[in-house]
């Protein structure tokens, strides 16, 4: 605290200015634009059939992708954090893949795989299974881009916690499932919830990958972000921002939940820290 008062004032002012321009103002813009023509128009644009279809599709995609990635994330983190096996670092890299690949590319991969001219295209067409430009494609793309969230959140947490508690549970006679439900899951619940919330936010907000596989069929294969874009391109900005405001509300809820979880899991993190310190002191 040796800096003079004016230096501090400038630095804090700059930080606030940045936050304001890049975060707060856009947030305000979204809601003012959405309500520009009044609350009635806002409600109307959300209740309109194409909008309802977009909202429903977004909920379906997230409703499938999030539970699947939850199960996968827990299983992968469990395997990586608690066991040694060949190919472990390869698996970690694989889990990170969706983070390092542009979402548009992930979408294209699915087109090349399932599209009419794609590898599996002819076979799918023969059996009248439609994946690309249909709901399954959107769900697949969403699953792909949200793949790493849960696992990434859990791996460091589970590694820090170690497997002593699970071993203790087993020596006390608990079976595999009992150990998981009674010991492992309660220990990771806040980290898991955090991962799920991030995963959900991304699943609902994903644009690139979904855009490629969707085909933008109104009322059928548009999610909220895609629908917002179409409306905007049609100069229907009030409706576009009404759609955008839904995602923004999701963001705000996500932030609020995250803050709550951070606060709740502080105890957990503190304990893990203690364990780490003890282990270090030991070594």
């Amino acid at each position, binding site marked *: 605290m040796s800096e003079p008062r004016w230096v501090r004032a400038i630095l804090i002012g700059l930080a606030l200015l940045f936050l304001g321009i890049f975060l707060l103002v856009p947030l305000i813009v979204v809601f003012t634009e959405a309500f520009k023509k009044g609350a009635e128009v806002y409600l109307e644009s959300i209740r309109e059939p194409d909008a309802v279809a977009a909202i429903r599709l977004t909920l379906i995609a997230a409703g499938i992708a999030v539970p699947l990635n939850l199960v996968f994330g827990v299983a992968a983190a469990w395997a990586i954090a608690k066991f040694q096996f060949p190919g472990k670092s390869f698996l970690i890299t694989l889990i990170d893949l969706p983070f390092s690949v542009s979402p548009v590319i992930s979408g294209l991969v699915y087109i090349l795989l399932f599209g009419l001219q794609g590898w599996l295209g002819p076979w799918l067409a023969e059996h009248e299974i439609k994946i690309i430009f249909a709901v399954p494609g959107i769900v697949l793309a969403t699953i792909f881009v949200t793949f790493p969230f849960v696992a990434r959140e859990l791996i460091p947490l589970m590694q820090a916690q170690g497997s*002593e*508690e699970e071993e203790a*549970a087993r020596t006390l006679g608990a079976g595999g499932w009992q150990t998981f439900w*009674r010991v492992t899951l309660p220990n990771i619940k806040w980290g898991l919830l955090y991962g799920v919330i991030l995963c959900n936010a991304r699943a609902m907000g994903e644009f690139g990958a979904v855009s490629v596989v969707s085909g933008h069929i109104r009322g059928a294969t548009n999610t909220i972000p895609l629908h917002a874009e179409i409306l905007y391109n049609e100069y229907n900005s009030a409706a576009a921002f009404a759609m955008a405001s839904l995602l923004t509300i999701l963001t705000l809820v996500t932030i609020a939940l995250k803050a709550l979880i951070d606060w709740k899991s502080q105890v957990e993190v503190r304990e893990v820290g203690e364990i780490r310190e003890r*282990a270090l002191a*030991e070594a």
Partner: protein
Amino acid sequence: MSIEIRNISKSFGDFRALKDVSFKVDTGELVALLGPSGSGKTSLLRIIAGIEVPDGNDGGILIHDEDTTSISFRDRRVGFVFQHYALFRHMTIFENVAFGLRVRPRRLRPSEKIIREKVNELLKLVQLDWLGDRLPSQLSGGQRQRIALARALAVEPNVLLLDEPFGSLDAKVRKELRQWLRRFHDELKITSVFVTHDQEEALEVADRVVLMNEGRVEQVGTPEEVYHHPANAFVYNFLGNVNLFHSRVEEGKVFLGELPIDLPAESTRDAKSALVFVRPHLLEIEHQRNGGDNFHAKVTHINAAGPLVKVDLVTDWGAAVHVEISHGRYASLGLKREDEVFVRPKERRVFVEAQSGKEDSTHP
């Protein structure tokens, strides 16, 4: 319930943690697995518990003369106390202790009332019944250790295994708790094995000590046996402070300066060098060369703070010698730094280094 360890080997990658280990723990005994870190003692304990699986099929763990290789955790009935307690951090102390009862299959699970009685009884046994509704993070290290013990006892184990039970506690708590463990064991008489790297702890608490080094058992015996009749150089060196002299063998004798010492009778003829061990309190300091069964040395440092006076000396051939004498003896000698004195070993152990590197031993 006795525990028999039969030809157990275990490797982790290229590292051979255990090399064909066998010994037996009798019913009701408290046995210490003692050795330096990396000697394989914890691996062995984890194999007895069934947490790790030994290599190969020719070895096994027999509990009460029954092979446990194919017995599940639940039926093995082994209580295990972890070094870092491994208490379930999200459960209260009460629920931690109750865990082993609650996870039983429905038909074997006691009623809520019986669980309650049993847990309270165990908490009383470890003298912590007032902590039932706390979380593990609210307890001190010594309290957590005792809760871990209560939790392990809840399943009425046939044998109790403790991994460095006092390893993460400070010196004073550690001393109290190990005396408590000894009394506790005398009350319950449950066959117990605990791992430690602290020789004082092992010698003080255990009925018998199993000394381990580099994955092998070096000696098994009562504390008196291993301390007074160490089987080899490692055991002698590991149990207590010791002066160690590397000496050449000449004409069947080993020399400490001008002082000749007989080689053990059964030792190999072609031995070229030997290790002579003398404990610091078994060396006598004298001003005269009485009779010549001593060697010449010079005092380099004196530390008189403590129950014994610690004198550091250096011999004519440059070896450092550490001697402990009583305060009375120290006063009558009138010892000062730089004094030229003679040192007489009252008792010593000679371990011959044969050419193979293997060591033979004998008593003085």
